[in-house]
């Protein structure tokens, strides 16, 4: 069982009357010749790394090597506890948790690249929050990671998830699309709805550039992970309500790739353009050198 496009994935889901996560599991079992049990055990290790990263990021007060990051995830989370969160409890938690993982990443802590280190906050931030708010168990979360993996796989095969190749849209955009599809399936949506959510997510950030200050995975990466978490939840909400993407997922992926290739190299992780190229970005770069 294999698929490289969203359309093929949907067809497999329809033929076997199963969710995206189940199709992804079958594919993985065939590819690796591992049993469902050993694959689940392996994925549980990844889930555990995600959980510990979120926990650590929300409690630690450590500054990153450059000093640019540290303590902001905790700030957002504490603010939401003290006052009513402007964007609601669920959204606020997902945002602070996504930020938390990026802080752990920037302080040389352990994360799961999902799909990349620079976008590693979005999938755990969204899924762990969803689990908490809707009391989903770890088995549900493993299914969510399978669904997320299927979406990431299609984007990797047909476009790119690397900021150096496709800009930030390819990194945090893909992570958000992965998380959005997982949310839809976990909340009882159909595979088709999950793909609509992923498509909407990617559309929302088409053209987003990769412009890290001093080339470090810190600024603006952390804020874009926060936005990615929000993007995933907003898109999932629409898709679950029956809102569809006019342009199908596969075509959006292709468009994302084309847009990425059209970006000048200054805006693809070279730390030359965008925020990295501002007077402040250049000053920080100089101070760190």
């Amino acid at each position, binding site marked *: 069982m*294999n698929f490289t496009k969203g359309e093929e994935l949907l067809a497999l889901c329809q033929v076997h009357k199963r969710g995206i996560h189940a199709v*992804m599991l079958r594919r*993985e079992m065939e*590819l*690796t010749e591992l049993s469902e049990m050993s*694959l689940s055990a*392996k*994925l549980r*290790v*990844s889930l555990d*790394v995600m959980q510990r990263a979120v926990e650590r990021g929300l409690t630690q007060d450590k500054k*990153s*090597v*450059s000093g640019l990051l540290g303590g902001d995830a905790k700030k957002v989370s504490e603010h939401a506890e003290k006052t009513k969160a402007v964007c609601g409890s669920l959204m606020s938690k997902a945002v602070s948790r996504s930020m938390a993982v990026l802080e*752990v*990443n*920037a*302080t*040389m*802590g*352990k*994360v*799961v*690249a*999902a*799909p*990349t*280190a*620079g976008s*590693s906050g979005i*999938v755990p931030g969204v899924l762990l929050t969803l689990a908490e708010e809707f009391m989903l168990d770890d088995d549900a979360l493993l299914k969510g*990671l*399978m669904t*997320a*993996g299927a979406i*990431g*796989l299609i984007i*990797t*095969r047909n476009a790119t998830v*690397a900021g*150096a190749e496709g800009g930030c849209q390819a990194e945090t955009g893909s992570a958000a699309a*992965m998380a959005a599809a997982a949310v839809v399936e976990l909340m009882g949506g159909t595979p088709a709805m999950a793909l609509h959510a992923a498509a909407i997510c990617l559309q929302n950030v088409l053209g987003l550039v990769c412009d890290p200050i*001093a*080339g*470090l*995975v*810190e600024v603006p990466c952390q804020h874009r992970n926060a936005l990615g978490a929000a993007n995933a939840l907003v898109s999932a909400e629409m898709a679950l309500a029956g809102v569809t993407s006019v342009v199908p997922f596969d075509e959006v992926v292709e468009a994302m790739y084309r847009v990425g290739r059209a970006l000048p190299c200054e805006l693809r992780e070279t*730390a030359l353009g965008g925020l990295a190229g501002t007077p402040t970005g250049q000053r920080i770069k100089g101070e*760190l*050198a």
Partner: protein
Amino acid sequence: MKEYSLFDIVGPNMIGPSSSHTAGACRLGYVAHKLARGKIQEVAFSLHGSFAATYRGHGTDKALLGGVLGLLPDDESLRDAFRLAEERGVKHSFVLTDLGAEQHPNTVRITVTKGDQQRMTMLGSSIGGGNIRITEIDGFNLVFTGEYPTLIIPHIDKPGVVGQVTSILGQRAVNIAFMRVYREHKGKNACMIIETDGAIRDAVLQEIRGIQNVTNATLVSIN
């Protein structure tokens, strides 16, 4: 095209912040650790391109050194690599260098001096997503990625040597995924790079080392 696993997408589990500047750097160091085989006394890193420009902020130095000390990209001790090196009495130095425009931006030359004063030098690049490419060992140009268990077998370019190696692997049920043979001059120094599907036991390595005209055999396996 490579078939991506779920764990290529939701993964790898790694120490941050960057798959290319941290995880990939650690893997490069780890290959040097495997190639050195034995107690390392001193290691020198020559950093090129983006490695030279941003190595501190990305922890590239700690990742490289940690790899040379035998740590893998998901080892939380990576950030304490300097302290570990001190404890083990491994001297280290980082030099910024220009290895030429044809080199990948994330390239490093690693020179290891062992207890017996023997030296090993390798050149490698971190080519994205934590993937690496080794392009030179001890002045010998070659290419491998470390994605598969890889045998590096320097030998003398004589008829039958390659055949003997592959038949030992065949007898031991080791499947060869990819294989390349490099040589400097006809009848002189040559090197086999054999990437395999499964694990290779030490006894198989010993057997290969025993073949006439095989100078050495090293297994590089990153897992």
